[in-house]
């Protein structure tokens, strides 16, 4: 349990640090800003207590807000994803899967994982950019930022997952 806690802490710090030092400075074509710290929530296995996911998600988002100077935006988005992650995971794994299934390419298969990660990153990016802009006056720019950031975030999450699966495998 302690190891799990420390592993999660390590993942969270690493992702937030990467976000702070690298990804916050990326603005591809002026629109795409990756938000790969969402990967932290994709890692939570099936059967995790929901309050636990909610708290981890909130703290991770809050940390990211602190280092990115965007108070509340990351926390709100991550809390929402933490709330829906167990529901999504439950619908995307086979019924006979183990109770503590660790979501990943190696356990779910590539396309199932892409679907799982794609939906969660889509929802996260949508929520993040809606809260960030807080208006619809520049809806085209908002749409471009959201779609490009989502795709870039998904790509990074799949890359992280590829590395992690290969290491585990």
């Amino acid at each position, binding site marked *: 349990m302690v190891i799990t806690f420390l592993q999660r802490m390590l993942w969270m710090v690493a992702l937030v640090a990467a976000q702070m030092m690298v990804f916050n400075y990326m603005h591809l074509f002026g629109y795409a800003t990756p938000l790969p710290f969402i990967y932290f929530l994709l890692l939570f296995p099936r059967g995790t207590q*929901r*309050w636990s996911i909610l708290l981890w998600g909130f703290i991770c988002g809050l940390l990211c807000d602190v280092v990115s100077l965007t*108070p*509340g935006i990351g926390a709100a988005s991550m809390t929402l994803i933490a*709330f829906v992650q167990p529901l999504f995971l439950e619908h995307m794994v086979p019924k006979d899967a183990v109770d503590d299934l660790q979501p990943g390419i190696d356990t779910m298969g590539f396309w199932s994982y892409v679907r799982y990660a794609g939906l969660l990153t889509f929802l996260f990016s949508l929520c993040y950019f809606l809260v960030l802009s807080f208006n619809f006056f520049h809806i085209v720019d908002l749409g471009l930022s959201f779609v490009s950031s989502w795709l870039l975030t998904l790509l990074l999450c799949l890359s992280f997952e590829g590395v992690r699966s290969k290491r585990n495998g």
Partner: protein
Amino acid sequence: MRALLDFISKYYHWLIFMVLEGFSFVLLFQFNHYHSSVWLTTANRVVGQVDAWEQEFLRYIKLGEVNEQLTRRNLILEQNLDILSARLAALTHDSTATERLQAERLSGITTIPANVVTNSVLRRNNFITIDKGEADGVQPEMGVVCGTGIVGIVYMSSTHYSIVMPLLNSRSRISCRLRGSSFFGYLKWEGSHPLFATLDDIPRHARFKVGDIVETSGFSSVFPRGIFVGKVAKIENSDDGLSYKLRVHLGTDFSCLQQVIVLSQQFQPELRDLEQKADSVASS
């Protein structure tokens, strides 16, 4: 209580979710000026709209009371309007030539304005009740006119009301003449039409035509000379063929009579006494 605890233990993650989201949005609005201003603007707009709806609802609730006040106020204003309109009409009335002539004829005579209380034109012997009586100086045998001609003679009077025998009464006899000549006769109503009366005893050598004006002759103490009565509408021979019988179109429309004037001549009582004495001497 147990059900509540069961409910909370089953859906506790909803509670945690809402608390954490609430905290996130507090941070968002607390530390981001843009979000804070948008939130305040939107919140103000929403609160303003809700307040407007509330006020509108309250106004709607009070509409019954407002309506009652307006009805009462409207009634008062209508009464005021009626009074002021009557005063304005009296002050700015453009009198016709007949009325002006009437006014000249009535100079030197005390006039007592009165309102018609009851009136009839359909009976053979019609009477008119007016709202002035002895307390106002109205006495029997006084003449009654209106703006368009003569009306009749006061038949009897009480303290505050009087009965007038109008032209439209089979017993009414008023001495009239043709304007511009000295030929006179007696005007009476035959009960056929309320706008027409008959002037009898016009001598056959008199010269006149249809349309000539008929006015009071002044041969009694009731009406002064020259009060407009009507116009000659038709010329006929009398039954005995010795005189003319003129059908007179009356100037007064009795069916819409509302205001009249009672004529009080200064020497009327004296003249009446003298006439009565003369009659009594002649009869003795």
